[in-house]
């Protein structure tokens, strides 16, 4: 494969290998995973806990959690300038310009994703003042004439207070923008919420704040790591709806990670199924539900509880990734297992247009 992106592609994860060096041994969390994200689409990544979904997402931001190490592969990303870069080869200074500005992330537990000691307004302001500083300074300059009254008229000529005054103006300029953002997040009474601390808000409100931070700088890619898993069902629906509408408004491509097939069906254009660190099947959402090819995908779809039919679970357990099964990592749980599944790893190949699968049942030399 070439090291360029197709015209329609925004991001491509190629043969990604991530390993965690722990006392129990080397955890092979992500092993030669392949994914791509088309401009403007929502890609769902589905898989059980420990399948490597979250690690993949964090690695896309070059934030692989320690003791994890990227041991191979590339993550090609088209920057706002049109230039295609490999995120894994960028230095920290460039990454700081990409994180939060071009690629953002929202998290599973909104409560944990917010610093308890700062108001939500402060935390949104951080994103704004980091990436949109020039714009905020411009807005601050416009405010200067209005705000230069009373004591500030004299104080702003003294260097120390000059800085304080500038801070104050910047805060004011950001304030306006934050209120606007909170409105977009459909948060009632934004003038009050902006000064609230995270613990004063409900889970749904907290998640809206986390989304506001992520979207503050209109990123091209949003990584959503199970953002509704810990919320009440009714709140879940609201947040999903919000994400869908904001995606249109901000023209953002979304990678949505979940283990909930229902959410996938509702939200995503395409689906990537991950199992034990491998991407085993990628296809448009309709195709996955209509014509699942990989035995794991089939089992996953069968395990969706349906009224009237008995609950079906996938036999066996998720393998220990310190000593993963040889060949296809799903083979110990697969009812179609063949000798070659134990010996060799099936490559991810395109079996019909846009439908990729990594299984010897469906070709693969």
């Amino acid at each position, binding site marked *: 494969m070439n090291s360029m992106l197709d015209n329609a592609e925004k991001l491509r994860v190629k043969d990604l290998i991530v390993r965690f060096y722990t006392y129990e041994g080397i955890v092979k969390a992500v092993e030669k995973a392949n994914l791509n994200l088309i401009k403007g689409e929502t890609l769902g990544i589905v898989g059980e806990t420990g399948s490597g979904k979250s690690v993949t997402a964090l690695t896309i931001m070059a934030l692989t959690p320690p003791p994890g190490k990227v041991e191979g592969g590339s993550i090609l990303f088209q920057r706002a300038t049109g230039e295609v870069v490999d995120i894994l080869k960028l230095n920290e200074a460039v990454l700081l310009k990409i*994180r939060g500005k071009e690629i953002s992330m929202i998290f599973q537990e909104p409560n944990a994703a917010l610093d308890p000691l700062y108001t939500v307004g402060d935390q949104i302001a951080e*994103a704004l003042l980091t990436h949109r500083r020039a714009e905020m300074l411009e807005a601050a300059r416009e405010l200067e004439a209005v705000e230069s009254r009373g004591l500030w008229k004299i104080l702003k000529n003294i260097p120390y207070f000059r800085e304080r005054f500038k801070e104050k103006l910047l805060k004011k300029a950001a304030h306006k923008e934050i209120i606007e953002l909170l409105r977009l997040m459909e948060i009632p009474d934004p003038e009050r919420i902006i000064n609230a601390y995270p613990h004063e808000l409900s889970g749904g409100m907290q998640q809206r704040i986390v989304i506001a931070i992520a979207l503050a700088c209109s990123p091209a890619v949003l990584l959503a790591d199970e953002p509704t898993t810990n919320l009440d069902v009714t709140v879940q629906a609201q947040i999903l709806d919000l994400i869908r509408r904001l995606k249109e408004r901000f023209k953002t491509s979304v990678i949505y990670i979940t283990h909930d097939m229902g959410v996938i069906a509702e939200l995503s254009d395409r689906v990537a199924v991950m199992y034990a660190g491998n991407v085993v099947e990628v296809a448009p959402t309709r195709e996955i539900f209509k014509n699942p090819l990989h035995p794991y995908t089939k089992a996953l779809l069968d395990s969706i509880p349906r009224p009237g039919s008995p609950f079906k679970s996938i036999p066996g357990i998720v393998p220990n990734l310190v000593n993963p099964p040889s060949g296809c990592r799903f083979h110990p749980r697969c009812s179609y297992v063949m000798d070659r599944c134990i010996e060799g790893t099936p490559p991810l190949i395109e079996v019909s247009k846009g439908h990729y699968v990594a299984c010897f049942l469906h070709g693969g030399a």
Partner: protein
Amino acid sequence: MGSNLRTYIARRLLLVIPTLIGVTLLIFAVTQLFDPVQRASLYIRDPKNLRAIDEVIRKYGLDQPFYIQYFSWLSQLLEGNLGWSQSLHMRVIDALVTRAPATIELAMYAAPLTIILGIRLGKLSAVKKDTWVDHFTRAFAIIGWSLPAFWLGIVLLAFFYGGLGIFSPGRLSPWAEALIRSGEFKVYTGLYTIDSILNLNAAVFLDALSHLVLPVTTLTIIDVALIMRIMRSSMLEQLGKTYIIAARARGLDEKTVVDKHATKNALIPVITISGLLTAGMLSGMVITETIFEFKGVGYFAAHAATQLDIPAVLGFALLTGIIFVIANLIVDLLYAYVDPRIRLG
């Protein structure tokens, strides 16, 4: 929101009253471990004069029931009368007032230094986890923590005073003490480094400071590990949290992530231990004060205890109790200042 904070402070201040009553009860209960004869015998010169013992017992009500003794002690206490110290030959309250400045001056330098150094080293150690910086800092702290104060103090004294002839023990050199006794140097606080500034006397200031170097160094080396280890583990815990990943994902640079977010959160448990450390220092450092002839509260409390000087021991214990109550109060108020979950919860 503001009223929540006011309620919190009011409630916390009110809590001081029952705590202090509890402290006085506990402290006074110690006297009941001795029978009246033992308590009276300290004041008797002639051991054969048994009638004198009975007289002392009757005069001071040592045979009265506990609660009567307690209330009479308490009412004296409220008048500022802590009794007579037979071992020091002065009123207990005077003993405390004259000894406290030495201890306060020592703690005033040792506590902030220990706390600031401990926080810095702990933070450094956590940020550079598992590098040689971390190993070195931890080794330094553990070695300091395991050194006995009497050993470290004597080694430092032997090297600097014995070998190099600098940093002599005591609080002041003889010439400075003579100056103070002459009346030309006005004593405002009893803290010589502060008084010398108020007297605009640089020579006394430098002299007092040079006498502080060794005891402060001893205390800092020994206690810094306590703060450092709490800060390190607290910092590591915070650095692993999701909000730190979220802060990085927002594009914040490492300095902002560590200083603004992780450090502030990590400091919360350090506040408690810093309060206790400071209170512990303020209530006397027996060994350090003894080695460096820094005649403060701890030095005399130990002396009084060996003489079975019960009023003096009660007075010192009460002072310690009050210091800890106040320290805990300050710690709780600091919590509210730092953590909105307490301030507004």
